[in-house]
């Protein structure tokens, strides 16, 4: 009997252990390859690493150097312009599309994917397509000239003061549909009873949306903001494909800065420092969000 009971014990124990056993490799891999390398990057940012990692500590010298670089300030300025416009415009367009699609219109099932599909493209494809479209020599401007509108001019992508706005344009085109889907899900989650009650009380459509629907979409706004802001901070491929950081260095973003300093300019320490700054920026956005989310669930 004693023998039997230990076997049962073993089985239940095994059942307890199996999920942990199965999960542990992925946990270990995430620990090493994500958090381990984050720690390694932070460490490198305090060393004098140039072409290869080195372990000579130099304190905050890399950060000093970083904040003294004009290229880094350009990247920060660009990120500020890009991120704020990208987030605001995407949210407005996404919300408007969602509200319009939510009017119980015919063919919604066909319209929705049309707006959503750009998200299925990679940023490289988006960037290349927009690069050709915006190129004055072969794209929109040239086509307009061929059609006889000779005075038409749209050369933002070749103008260092406006090139960053073409990045916004392409990014908004890519992501608006996705934001729309998030808002649409939020709209579908709103209790119809509330809306009916408001309508009975004589609320106009406008005040219905302004005072009831949009405030109820708060969680969707928050998710949209978090997703868009981290997309903005880590954007790399879109800029590389669309402008290559040019004209000159006019559309450099922190991510392109980080890559070029770490891997092509042999200034790994400075590159690591910029990566740490990017990480802390994202953390500054994500931590309050996670905190709020977890608090709600409790």
């Amino acid at each position, binding site marked *: 009997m004693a023998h039997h009971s230990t076997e049962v014990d073993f089985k239940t124990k095994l059942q307890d252990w199996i999920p942990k056993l199965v999960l542990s490799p992925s946990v270990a891999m995430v620990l090493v390859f994500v958090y381990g390398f984050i720690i390694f990057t932070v460490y490198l940012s305090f060393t004098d690493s*140039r*072409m*290869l*990692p080195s*372990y000579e500590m130099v304190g905050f010298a890399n950060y000093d*150097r970083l904040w*003294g*670089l*004009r*290229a880094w300030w350009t990247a920060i300025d660009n990120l500020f312009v890009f991120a704020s416009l990208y987030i605001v415009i995407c949210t407005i367009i996404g919300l408007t599309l969602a509200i319009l699609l939510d009017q119980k219109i015919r063919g919604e099932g066909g319209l929705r994917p049309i707006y959503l599909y750009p998200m299925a493209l990679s940023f490289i494809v988006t960037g290349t397509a927009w*690069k050709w479209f915006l*190129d*004055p*020599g072969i794209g929109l401007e040239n086509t307009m000239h061929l059609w006889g509108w000779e005075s038409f001019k749209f*050369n933002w*992508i*070749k103008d*260092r003061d406006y090139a960053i706005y073409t990045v916004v344009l392409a990014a908004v085109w890519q992501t608006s549909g996705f934001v729309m889907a998030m808002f649409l899900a939020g709209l579908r989650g709103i209790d119809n009873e509330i809306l009916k009650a408001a309508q009975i009380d004589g609320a106009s459509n406008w005040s219905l949306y302004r005072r009831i629907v949009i405030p109820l979409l708060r969680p969707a706004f928050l998710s949209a903001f978090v997703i868009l802001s981290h997309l903005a901070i880590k954007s790399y491929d879109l800029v590389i494909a669309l*402008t*290559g950081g*040019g*004209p*000159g*260095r*006019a559309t450099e973003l922190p991510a392109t800065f980080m890559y*070029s300093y770490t*891997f*092509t*300019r*042999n*200034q790994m320490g400075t590159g690591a420092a910029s990566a740490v700054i990017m990480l802390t920026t994202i953390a500054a956005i994500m931590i309050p969000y996670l905190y709020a989310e977890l608090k709600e669930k409790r």
Partner: protein
Amino acid sequence: MTIRKLLGGAAVAAMISGAAYAEDVEVLHWWTSGGEAAALNVLKDDLAGQGIGWVDMPVAGGGGEAAMTTLRARVTAGDAPTAVQMLGFDIKDWAAEGALGNLNAVAEAEGWDAVVPTALQNFSKHDGNWIAAPVNVHSTNWVWMNKAALDATGLGEPTTWEELVAVLDAMQANGITALGHGGQAWQDATIFDAVVLSLGDDFYKSAFIDLNPDALGGAQMVEAFDRMAKLRSYVDDNFSGRDWNLASAMVINGEAGMQMMGDWAKGEFLRADQVPGEDFVCIRFPGTQGSVTFNSDQFAMFDTGGDSPAQQAMAASVMNPSFQSAFNVVKGSVPARTDVPNDAFDACGKKGMADLADANANGRLHGSAAHGHANPAAVKNAIYDVVTAHFNGEFDSATAAEEMVNAVESAM
């Protein structure tokens, strides 16, 4: 030091894994386009004839950035390839890490010291030891002109800055884009190399090789930037981001009058069935006659732990005059040794070879700053930043010269 330990580990691992690899060379390179790959086959066949296998490791991507990133990963993992295609200061950096092997035996036996130009040896040797075998020499201070467009100006080939401006003006008056150019940082910097050199060899050396702040921020630098601004005025509106070969195409079909580019541009002209001297003209950038700014592809040989006969044999094959001739005819560059017969080369190639020998003899052969042969990558890119910002109108010439000093200082 860590690298040495890692390499030591790799050597032990290689010994344990047996002798099967002893007769192979693993080669990391980015010569993947048709002509280049065909040229590499010459080398491959030569080695196969000696019973040495070739493990190909191509990492595509023009300037080799992707290849260098791969190399870093391989070396950090303790698994360095036998030979790696490399440019300029990358070789010096790897040599300083103690990661490269020693080719002295083969270099001595074949007498490389006597035939490889001294300026090239700066990159092929570290602390007096041969570490790399140079494959070719590209020179960057060339101007490629459409012959018909030049004839239409009624002017001859320009030999001074003033004559160049006259030709450019005349071409513009004839209704074509005078200067075909692609607005990418390295292309702007390629022109800047030639412009700085046209203000004197001493100035070039002082500014780009010695990184002397007085030269970097001085009156001559302002003058160089003024000349860049002048050249900028002959470029079409749509130049930014254009690839160099598209700019060459503009010259080939007569949309543009000339392009200032290294000799790899010649390949574009030849592929379009153009004949040097008849359809297009190759001249040195006016004011730089007799001088050559170069970049040179080399095979850097990694320390594979002890003697590697296959590695030495590969180095010898690379330096073989018949390979040097065959490869460089295809590549558009000139051989890295000065004793290779020039029979197989076209007129521009022959001129390039003569110029190289000349410049070498007179001490006027300089590493190209735009192509990482005058200063380390960090400094090179800092210079790019300033040159391209000025070319795109962000700075005036005086500010650019000031910024040049700051940028170079912050990169060191």
